[in-house]
């Protein structure tokens, strides 16, 4: 499971002031659950996920992944985490099986286990034809499958996927969607981010709305519908954004 507590991530701006990409964010995602981090571009989704994957150090607060603290045990966090995003590219000069084996070895797996797991996944995702090809010669869809296998080769209990479908065509995006579902079926904790409302509606057990680095609202789709009185997720999202802007305005007036 993922548990995020008062997470803050600030970046220095050119003029010396600070920019809060993630501002006091807390939420949880349980095992056997799909949680969606929903927000427009620049809301802080990617930064949150980079902090969770230990690529970035948090400026404040912390989080645990499968019980391991991202500050204290980054190594353990990475061991228990499968991470996939538009920025996790592939080594073009390697062959598919070499690439997957490389990551398997980094996760301290036996070569025998790697082979076994790789064969399983190749069967499942229909990849057998191109396991020996160099990655640079693969199509986008094929590459996406390789990325999936790479992220899950060590069978992690927690999966984090940052905008996994962005830039993909419908057929390739479907691979990802079914992959996310299958992760849940295996009892994993899945956190994925998107700005596409339909994806959130279809996949998520719970939705965490994030805007300008802050959490707007959190809950299942039904709960959010009940709270706002809107049916469509688009409208629900806009409702919360307006509420948030009003609050900021009120705060501004108080000074």
């Amino acid at each position, binding site marked *: 499971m993922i548990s995020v507590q008062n997470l803050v991530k600030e970046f220095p701006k050119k003029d010396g002031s600070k920019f809060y990409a993630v501002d006091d964010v807390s939420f949880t995602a349980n095992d056997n659950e799909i949680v969606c981090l929903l927000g427009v571009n620049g809301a802080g989704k990617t930064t949150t996920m980079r902090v969770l*994957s*230990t690529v970035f150090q948090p400026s404040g607060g912390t989080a645990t992944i499968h019980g391991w603290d991202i500050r204290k045990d980054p190594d353990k966090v990475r*061991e228990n985490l499968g991470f996939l995003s538009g920025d996790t*590219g592939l080594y073009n000069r*390697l062959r598919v099986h070499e690439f997957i084996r490389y990551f398997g070895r*980094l996760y301290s797996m036996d070569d025998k286990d790697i082979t076994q797991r790789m064969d399983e996944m190749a069967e499942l995702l229909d990849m057998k034809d191109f396991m020996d090809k160099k990655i640079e010669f693969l199509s986008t869809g094929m590459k996406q499958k390789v990325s999936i296998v790479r992220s899950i080769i060590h069978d992690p209990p927690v999966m984090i996927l940052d905008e996994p479908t962005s830039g993909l065509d419908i057929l390739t995006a479907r691979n990802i969607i079914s992959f996310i579902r299958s992760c849940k079926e295996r009892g994993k904790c899945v956190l994925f981010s998107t700005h596409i409302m339909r994806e959130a509606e279809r996949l998520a057990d719970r939705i965490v709305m994030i805007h300008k680095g802050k959490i707007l609202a959190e809950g299942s789709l039904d709960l959010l519908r009940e709270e706002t009185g809107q049916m469509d997720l688009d409208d629900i999202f806009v409702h919360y954004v307006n509420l948030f802007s009003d609050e900021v305005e009120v705060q501004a007036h108080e000074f």
Partner: protein
Amino acid sequence: MNFRKVMIVFRKELMEVLRDKRTLFTTLLLPVILYPVLIIGFNAIMTRQTGVLEERGATVAIIDSVNTQISSRLIAGLEEIPNFSFIPAGDDVQGLYDAKEIQSVVTLKDSLAGDGLIKYHIYIQYDAANERSNMTYGKIFDVLEDIETELISDQLQISGISPELMNMVDVRGRDTADSQKKMGMILGMFLPYIMIIMLFTGASVVAADLVAGEKERKTLETLLVASVGRLEIVIGKFLTIITLSMLNLIVNLFSISFSLRFMLSQSGLDMAGAGMPIKAILILLAAMLPLATLFAAILLSISTFSRNMKEARTYESPLMMVSMIMAMISFLPAIEMNSLMAMIPIVNISLLFKAVMVNEYQVSHLMITILSTVVLVIIAIWGSIKLFNNEGVLMRSDDDSSSLKGIKKNRANFFTPYNGMVYFTLALLLLYYVASRWQMQDLARGLVMTQVIVIALPVFILLKVLKMKAAPVLRITMPRLKELILIPFIAIPATVIVAILAQFINSIYPFPEHYLESLGKLFEMNLPLWGSFLVVAVAPGFCEELLFRGLFPRFFQKYGMKVNIVITALLFAAFHLDPFRFVPVFLLGALLGYLTLRSGSIIHSMIAHTINNGLALLISVFSGSQIIKLVMMDSENLHYWVVIPAAIILFLALRAFHRFTERGEEICAES
């Protein structure tokens, strides 16, 4: 650190790099092809070319104004040169020569020497810049010399003297160097240069690919989220670069060695059979390994810092230039290895290489070279690990680069360290190219013009352009009286201490004579004392302070006061274009920076600077007087003991100044 993971990273990187055709080409294929083509090809072309030239022969015009038996014999000898044809000179001989129809004009004249003998003068007109004409000259000269010997020997025989008389004094050198050593000397000249450059290029291709390349291809994040620590990644990549550059080096050495062997066996010199000694190669590889490591660490840092490979290559090129220049030291005949040289990176390898090739190296130099490089390596590795742990650097993307547009948009942001360095470079260029010319024409006027036009005026123009008020930006504010009173008590002892330091440096590494002379000129200008004082003390005191304590600290203020003082003092020292006074000027600059930034008023440092320069002038003018003699050893040097009272006064005055300006830091932070 998990060494197994390091090796996993290393093996994968090596495999990937070796699959890159570009890397493969530059590290392995290029050296294999380059040297044979270069050495053998060049050699073949040279011999071919000379052969072709000789085959083509030449046409030579002869003007024989002597017409004796001897001149005919000389001409007959010339006519025997194969492929040469001789024509009698007509009126158009110069025209033919200019049109390159004939390659040479030979004129024979004679004169009567004092003892009644006829002397023959032969003038060979030729064009030294033309290969064919040059060859013609060489052939004619050789033949004529042979005939001269024959003629003299004939004459001697007629006079009844043995022609052997001509060989009465037979001079011959006996070369004790064996062919191995000769070979070593030649190789020792240019090989270090080639090897160092090869090492660098080999490493840079790989290094740029390893981190900047990963950023460009968006694979870095894939690696960072995997179960591997940053230290393990850095070390793995680092080993890859070292391996590749050493591999590159070995391939290079073998290729050179093979090509040379081939060339020498072809050339038929007495060096045939001499190759590069294996022992020397092994020693050199051992010495090159730390350098390869150093290059690897520095290049890895650059690669980590860069956003993409192109940027990495841009940052690498100045480093490459510096390395090339340092490596060139092996070309200089006079410079030899010593313990000091052994501490300078690259230079030490270059000189060691030279010494090893002629088998005259000292083990201590080898050790110092390796040790000093290892120290630098540790610093460089530490730097690349630091950088790799800096997420701002590691995840830098293309969009947060500062552009020129940004500067125009935001005037407040003009004061960035980058712009500061640009300004400094421009000022330095102006000083070097324009100001030095002024000073050569007229020292006093040139100095004042430099101060006002090159140093002070641009500061005000810049602020005008930026629409900023000069006084607050440059900290031109009236200081408090009690601080001001302290300034002489700071400036005078500081000047004395710095002067003694310079004196101390001089006694260890004596300044060159011409340098001291040019410095002395400053105090011997044809001016009244107050004039000299204006030129040497007041003008720099005001103008240089405006730039170095007024403008420059604004560029670097984001680093905080301490670093700011150090940076501006470094620039101040560099601006004096004087390696001998670098340290003293730096210390003075740091003190002046402290006075201004601490108090918030530039007036302090202006006065202190003027006192410092003025004091040097006064000492040189009044060096004869009794009071000054008290503290002087001789006409130029102060007594070393003077440093003690000076240090005490400086310490006390600075402590008081520091206490008086307790508020100063706030003033500084506000502005």
